[in-house]
């Protein structure tokens, strides 16, 4: 059982509400006294994940477990799934529509950013069923090569 267990619904097709979950987690981590680098990494990775769920999956659920030595984030959706995860992980690869690009997203940086800013990340995706992204940030682990 984690120190703090948080669950958020990420609404689909609503860009105005994307960022509420990551914003809340950021606020809580800050209050709990986590170092700014870890707070920033969690917030960025989670926001990118939220945006992905809004763009591609019609929303989903975010589950965050906060412990003194680790922050675990699970992003679960029931969207179309990712046919080729390796391709999706490539910087610059995107299937986002033009209206999303006009908002300043869809540059194919979401998943690469999530990987870059977390210490561990795994993607389990089944086409037609959905995608689960698990990310872990270890506070205090050095920011190397970022």
């Amino acid at each position: 059982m984690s120190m703090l267990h948080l669950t958020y619904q990420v609404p689909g097709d609503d860009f105005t509400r994307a960022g509420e979950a990551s914003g809340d987690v950021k606020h809580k981590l800050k209050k709990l006294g986590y170092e700014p680098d870890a707070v920033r990494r969690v917030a960025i990775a989670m926001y990118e994940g939220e945006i992905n769920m809004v763009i591609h999956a019609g929303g989903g659920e975010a589950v965050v477990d906060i412990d003194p030595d680790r922050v675990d984030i699970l992003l679960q959706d029931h969207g179309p799934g990712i046919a080729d995860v390796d391709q999706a992980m490539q910087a610059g690869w995107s299937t986002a529509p033009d209206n999303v690009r006009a908002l300043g997203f869809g540059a194919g940086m979401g998943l690469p950013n999530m990987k870059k800013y977390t210490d561990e990340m795994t993607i389990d995706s089944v086409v037609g069923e959905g995608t689960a992204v698990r990310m872990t940030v270890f506070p205090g682990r050095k920011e190397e090569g970022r």
Partner: protein
Amino acid sequence: MTVKEMAEALGWNLLAGEDGADNQIDGCYVGDLLSWVMARAQSGNVWITVMGNVNAIAVATLTDVSCIVLTENAALDQDAAKKAEMQGIPVYGCAANSYDTAVQVYERLK
């Protein structure tokens, strides 16, 4: 230097988020691609951009930039203005382009 002092010195118009006008400025970042900005802008930066949508406000909140400056009179959406007020993210507008604005900020921070 505070956001308010910089805005007065450079003639920026406050569009929303006055609560954050006492934020300190210690640098500057220019960019319009939100994922890129999110990964690179540092806390305390003036963020110069033309993206005045609600997602830009979210990015500003997550990165702890000191303020947003919308250059070339780029518009701030209504939703974005509301969110900026709620989060206390100061958003300013100006007529100059991003390059000139960045140069002006640099001169003031020297």
